[in-house]
């Protein structure tokens, strides 16, 4: 424990340097802008901006890339809430209640709750990351194909069971989604499935184009024929802040979303997407007023937004503790570190209590 605190102090001494804070700020701003753009997303954003970090020290580069990552994860919620167009896949669930809140004139409150939820989840998970990373990383690496299959099946069933309305329809939509996922090259055999000679379909259908089509285009079509255009909301500054009731209703979902997101985030794969889906389903199930979900429930914004940000931290666990990237984004960040001819973390370094900032020190 003493060593953890010592490392933490060392980490803060680096992280609180003005230059590092400046790069963190710049990363968050750029990341938020990237997240707001539908279809770009954190992976594309980090990949595109990777060359911009080549002139920086490893610490500054990793801090900036982490800022871009977190910023993009938050930025995706802005267009979800205001326009019902998810900036990236993990913000799909925020579209439902975030946009409904905006339609009720609570756009500012929804944005604030998403921001605070993301901040709390990110902060709490950084602490958990320092303390729990090595054992959690070892656990995550035991996940094989059967465990993944079981986890995804659980996610779909939980969503179908908890989403309310007709369970048969929910299951039918889950199966339809799985069928859409069949398009492209079969990973096991290399066969092209349902691609009809179109090379682009070999990669399958992206989550973001489908989500933008389902939510964004549907909204455009639904409002296309309105004789009176939708009213532009001009809230006063104090209306941008959530009310006391909204804060109260969002606290527990934020806590649950944080825990769920971190635990699911440790597991390699598209954890940040799954975590937001599971969080939404859990909140709906636990709510005393499940009928409010879809109509602007605060918990429907607070839970998923906290979960996807907590999953972002969780994704660092295997990377920082064992040097094994848990998904494409940590892999790109690991590549950024490797591009400076620095050794990547190894299993022997897992003995050290890792933190996102102190872990970069040995490779500075």
């Amino acid at each position, binding site marked *: 424990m003493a060593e953890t605190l010592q490392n933490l102090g060392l980490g803060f001494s680096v992280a609180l340097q003005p230059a590092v804070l400046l790069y963190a700020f710049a990363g968050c701003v750029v990341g938020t802008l990237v997240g707001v*753009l539908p279809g*770009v997303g954190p992976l*594309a954003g980090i990949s*595109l901006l990777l060359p911009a970090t080549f002139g920086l020290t490893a610490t500054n580069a990793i801090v900036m890339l982490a800022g871009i990552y977190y910023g993009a994860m938050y930025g995706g919620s802005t267009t979800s809430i205001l326009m019902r167009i998810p900036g990236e896949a993990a913000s799909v669930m925020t579209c439902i209640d975030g946009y409904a809140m905006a339609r009720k004139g609570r756009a500012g409150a929804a944005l604030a709750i998403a921001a605070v939820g993301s901040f709390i989840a990110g902060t709490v998970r950084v602490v958990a990351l320092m303390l729990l990373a090595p054992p959690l990383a070892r656990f995550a690496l035991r996940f094989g194909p059967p465990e993944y299959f079981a986890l995804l099946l659980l996610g779909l069933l939980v969503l179908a069971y908890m989403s309310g309305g*007709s369970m*048969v*329809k929910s*299951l*039918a939509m889950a*199966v*339809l989604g*799985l*069928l859409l996922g*069949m398009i492209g090259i*079969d990973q*096991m*055999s290399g*066969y092209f*499935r*349902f691609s009809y000679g179109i090379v682009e379909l070999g990669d399958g259908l992206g989550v973001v184009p489908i989500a933008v089509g389902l939510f964004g*285009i549907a909204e*455009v*079509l*639904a*409002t*296309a*024929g*309105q004789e009176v255009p939708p009213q532009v909301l001009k809230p006063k500054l104090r209306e941008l802040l959530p009310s006391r009731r909204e804060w109260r209703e969002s606290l527990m979902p934020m806590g649950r979303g944080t825990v769920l997101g971190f635990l699911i985030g440790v597991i390699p794969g598209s954890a940040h997407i799954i975590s937001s889906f599971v969080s939404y389903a859990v909140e709906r199930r636990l709510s005393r007023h499940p009928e409010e979900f879809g109509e602007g429930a605060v918990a429907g914004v607070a839970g998923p937004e906290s979960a996807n940000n907590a999953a972002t931290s969780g994704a660092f666990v295997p990377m920082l503790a064992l040097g094994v990237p848990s998904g494409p984004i940590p892999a790109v960040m690991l590549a950024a570190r490797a591009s400076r001819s620095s050794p990547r973390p190894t299993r022997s370094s897992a003995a050290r209590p890792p933190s996102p900032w102190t872990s970069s020190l040995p490779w500075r």
Partner: protein
Amino acid sequence: MLTTDRLGGSALCLLAVFVMWESRRLPLGTWHHPGPGYFPGLLAVILFVLGGLVGAMGKHAASVATVGWSEARQALVILAVGAFICFALEGLGYRLTMLAALLFLVWLVERRSLVTAVTFALALAGGSFYLFDTVLRVPLPRGPFGI
């Protein structure tokens, strides 16, 4: 009576049959060694059953005749413009395609003034190209003369 659920259930069943038909070219494999056609086939069967259930339980859903779509004309025009963008993007390039599509939508569909439509279309087509292609270096299709 044709209800929305019955219509939806039938559509799901039709889709399931289509997937089964298309999966026939893919090796099925076995239970222990499933081939590329195994999972789509299995999912298609499940979808057929679920679609049938949705239809069978859809007696009390809203009648299709009562469901209106007042914005159909505008929506179909937007979809047609979307299709035009998909097919024209590679040939005409991003800027020309978006310019044409936005001009059509704002001037002819939304019936705004020509000046407004041209200004909006030029600004959005040029601005978004600059942001993605120039600033973010996402290569967007270019048309004749590199436009």
